[in-house]
């Protein structure tokens, strides 16, 4: 192993959080190196408009995701089962390469509700301890919405989010989400142009007494230049967002918002195809001294650094902590330990509607083109007597109708042959969908640890995922899906197929890449791995960014909160940590 010259900061992973933190710390005058195990990716060359919308290559063959031969996880539903490795991604799709998941996302950019962040206290005060499900591990985040608001704002203005504010400094705004937390100002750009599905959804939900508003979108409704001076172009509604890189500079990603500035910063260096093996620790285990990594030639390097930022995908952040001995690993048998606990996910559902007389033109879509209702989100509605915690947003979206995967046919249609072809023809353009994005709470037996059997190509144990949907989530999803059916009926569907989320969780069908937890934040080192600044309790010069910090998952896509927390941590490092390097920002 060869030792490189010291840097002030080493960042593991160059996606959203790595790019945000890299830029903030370079601005503070630090020398920063980011190590990214995937390739360099740039709009014009890698998302060339002539190849970017290739459904087979990107959506089906998973071009932008890490190859399972390079890394994967093992999975099981319960601790008494034997986990098996995922040899082909299914339920979720971990990104790879520069930009990370920020390249292949759809662009739904949410803030969590204030009551999502102090969920434990809030529900207990409103409903009493009895509302919480069996074996739950629901915790407050240790941060308030008011503390996080300025950082949500920064991320939204970095991205140029298209939306309609619902609550500016406590004043409810017409056309926005009346249930959202306050915001200091409106969205940087107006909402996207809506399609027929959104028009029908808006009319139906309004008639039903609900409160529809445009989904906040990282797809540009108009050209936008962000505070860094980087410009994006208007979205063309091509419908190739999720699983694809955007060829038109129209979807916010590290490439389209930060990297043009960051890559030219004299304090910044990125090394791609460099896989970090572990964080190196001092002899007393209280300080990180850098990382080791393997480059594309197989050469192993030591990169010393004063500050280590884990900014990889949620799963890999947790795994690096376990490899490196940062924080006490979670032990399911005792409930002790913190690293790996509170793995959570997302409980989504859908209601398909088959129409006679409508032409939806669903191929003209955008990742976050939609209208949403938050009437059954979080604790917006009264949970008394409902026997579950949490909620979901309800969305009428038009995000793609790609020819291989978008084949909506009514139940009972044969899976192949001329009848299937005819049903495809009849329904392709006359079907639409209302979906929900539901919360998932944390449980004692849903967690991440190291697999005892399976190893990666470098000989390290794979991460093992133990997870299932619990009755609380099934009840929540059934309740919300029941509210979606009348919407579809009011929209005029002749046939309605409702699919509430039900266990057991399967690794096979794609559900969502909203994996959360495992290195959760909180106000107590006995119950959380990082403090509210995402600084590890045990090793103060290691910060762990991203959705790994979520103590449980809310009924929203995570990226807005991931971005806000990264800015929040960066400010804490710049304004507080650097005055007393190596010291905890919160006393245990």
């Amino acid at each position, binding site marked *: 192993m060869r030792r490189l010259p010291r840097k002030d900061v080493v960042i593991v992973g160059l996606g959203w959080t790595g790019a945000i933190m890299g830029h903030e710390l370079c601005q503070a005058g630090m020398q920063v190196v980011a190590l990214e195990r995937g390739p360099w990716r740039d709009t*014009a060359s890698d998302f*060339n*408009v002539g190849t970017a919308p290739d459904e087979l290559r990107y959506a089906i063959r998973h071009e932008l995701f890490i190859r399972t031969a390079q890394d994967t996880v093992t999975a099981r539903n319960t601790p008494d089962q034997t986990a098996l490795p995922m040899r082909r991604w299914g339920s979720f799709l971990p990104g790879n390469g520069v930009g990370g998941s920020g390249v292949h996302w759809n662009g739904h950019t949410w803030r969590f509700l204030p009551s999502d962040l102090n969920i434990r206290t809030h529900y207990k005060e409103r409903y009493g301890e009895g509302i919480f499900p069996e074996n739950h591990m629901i915790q407050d985040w240790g941060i308030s919405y008011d503390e996080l608001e300025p950082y949500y704002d920064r991320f939204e203005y970095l991205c140029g989010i298209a939306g309609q504010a619902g609550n500016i400094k406590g004043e409810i705004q017409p056309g926005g989400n009346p249930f959202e937390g306050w915001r200091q100002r409106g969205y940087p750009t107006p909402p996207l142009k809506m399609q027929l599905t959104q028009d029908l959804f808006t009319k139906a939900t309004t008639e039903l007494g609900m409160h529809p508003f445009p989904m906040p979108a990282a797809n540009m409704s108009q050209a936008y230049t962000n505070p860094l001076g*980087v*410009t994006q172009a208007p979205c063309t509604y091509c419908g190739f967002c999720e699983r694809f890189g955007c*060829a*038109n500079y129209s979807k916010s990603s590290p490439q389209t918002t930060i990297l*043009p*500035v960051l890559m*030219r910063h004299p304090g910044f260096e990125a090394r791609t195809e460099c896989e970090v093996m572990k964080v190196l620790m001092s002899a007393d285990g209280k300080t990180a001294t850098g990382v080791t990594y393997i480059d594309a030639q197989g050469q192993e390097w030591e990169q010393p650094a004063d500050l280590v930022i884990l900014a990889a995908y949620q799963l890999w952040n947790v795994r690096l902590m376990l490899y490196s001995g940062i924080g006490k690993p979670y032990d399911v048998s005792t409930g002790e330990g913190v690293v790996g606990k509170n793995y959570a996910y997302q409980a989504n559902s859908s209601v398909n509607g088959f129409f006679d007389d409508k032409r939806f033109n669903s191929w003209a879509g955008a990742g976050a083109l939609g209208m949403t209702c938050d009437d059954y989100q979080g604790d917006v509605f009264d949970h008394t007597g409902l026997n579950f915690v949490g909620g979901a947003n309800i969305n009428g979206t038009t995000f793609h109708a790609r020819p291989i995967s978008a084949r909506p046919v009514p139940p009972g249609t044969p899976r192949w042959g001329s009848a299937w072809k005819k049903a495809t023809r009849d329904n392709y353009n006359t079907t639409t969908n209302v979906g929900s994005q539901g919360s998932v709470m944390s449980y004692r037996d849903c967690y991440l640890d190291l697999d005892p059997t399976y190893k990666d190509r470098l000989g390290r144990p794979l991460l093992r995922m133990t997870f299932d949907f619990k009755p609380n989530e099934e009840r929540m999803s059934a309740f919300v899906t029941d509210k979606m059916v009348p919407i579809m009926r009011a929209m005029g569907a002749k046939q309605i197929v409702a699919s509430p989320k039900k266990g057991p969780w399967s690794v096979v069908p794609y559900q969502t890449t909203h994996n959360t937890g495992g290195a959760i934040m909180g106000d107590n080192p006995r119950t959380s791995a990082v403090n509210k600044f995402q600084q590890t309790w045990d090793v103060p010069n290691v910060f762990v960014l991203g959705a790994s910090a979520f103590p449980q998952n809310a009924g929203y896509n995570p990226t807005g909160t991931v971005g806000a927390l990264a800015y929040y941590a960066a400010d804490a490092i710049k304004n507080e940590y650097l005055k007393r390097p190596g010291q905890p920002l919160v006393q245990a």
Partner: protein
Amino acid sequence: MRARLLAALSAAALLLAAPARAAPDNFDQVERGRYLVVLGDCVACHMSTSGDHQGSQGFVGGRPIETPFGNIVTPNITPDRATGIGTWSADSFYRAMHEGIRPNGARLYPAFPYTYFTRMPREDTDAIFAYLNTLDPVNHAVDRNSLPFPLNIRASMLAWNGLFFEPGEFRPDPNRSAEWNRGAYIVEGPAHCGACHTPKNLAGADRSSERFAGGPLQGWFATNLTGDQRTGLGDWSADEIVEYLQKGRNARSAASGPMAEVVEYSTSVMTEADLRAIATYLKEPPAAAPASPARTALAADNAQMRAGEAIYVDRCGACHTRSGEGVARMFPRLAGSQVVQQEGNETLLRVVLQGVRAAYSPHAPTSPAMPAFGWRLNDDETAAVTTYIRNAWGNAAPAVSAADAARMRDLLRDRP
């Protein structure tokens, strides 16, 4: 490093009790030189082949400059005694800038634009020399004799100079404003705009009768800078010229190719007052330029136009829009674009076949790129879509042939 070396030398001088003469504090001169180096875009030619242009690396030389006669490799102009200009004096530096003659009497080739730098007064070349002497000397030998026989005989430049070169410093026009004269000095002197934008005769000298009419250059077509409405700057406001030079793009266009380097190393770092002076001068040229030939657009039902339109709608319209308006400051406007209507089709063909990254400017860091299409359009298709772009939406320019596309494809084969 350089400062420490100087300190050591002066200490030695004291010990030897040599008659030492205090050097003046030349801060003002060095700063003037630093800025003149920006005006002259010296870095674009003299930077290292690695692309590193920080500090001395911007001046170590070694980049091959393409000319119709062969490549000329730029020299090291750091103050290294063995391989740079460390043994030169301010006098000899002035002579090189003013007359194109090295201290050893050898003639420089006009790829080094002494034909423009001759307009710089002695105080400006002294300032550049003073600035270059603040750089760390870098030992970096380059092959200075890369031209084929007989052009490698530098004495041949004597005859060339006799025919095409008139040394002489810039003389302001008392009938014009100070701003106009400042612009004239920059454009005709240090910034040497005509070196690319004025067509050359067979000997590689400027055709003074076609000043700023644009011409082919290194596989691109340097655009017309005259007041011509269709192909020149006639339709551009001074503000648009300033924005283009400062930010590398404006609502019409984006700098790419060699002009992207000019923006990055030179114009984006100039003062706004100087950019405004350049714009003033370009909008009011000293002599009327010959008009570009009148053109009529090809008919929309021309077979090439119809094929080109179909390709355009499929491949180009998502960014440049169906109406050719583009997206201001991101995707250049093609309707009414000067770049696409130049007499020569080199730039348009090159951009379509190879793709291109727009200029970076600290004032506009996005630097968006156009993807390559050479891998998916054959020569006929390339010719059709470029012909369409040159003749749609009110544009008018000569049609592009498949042979043109093939020639450009060949030219690009060995280039990055």
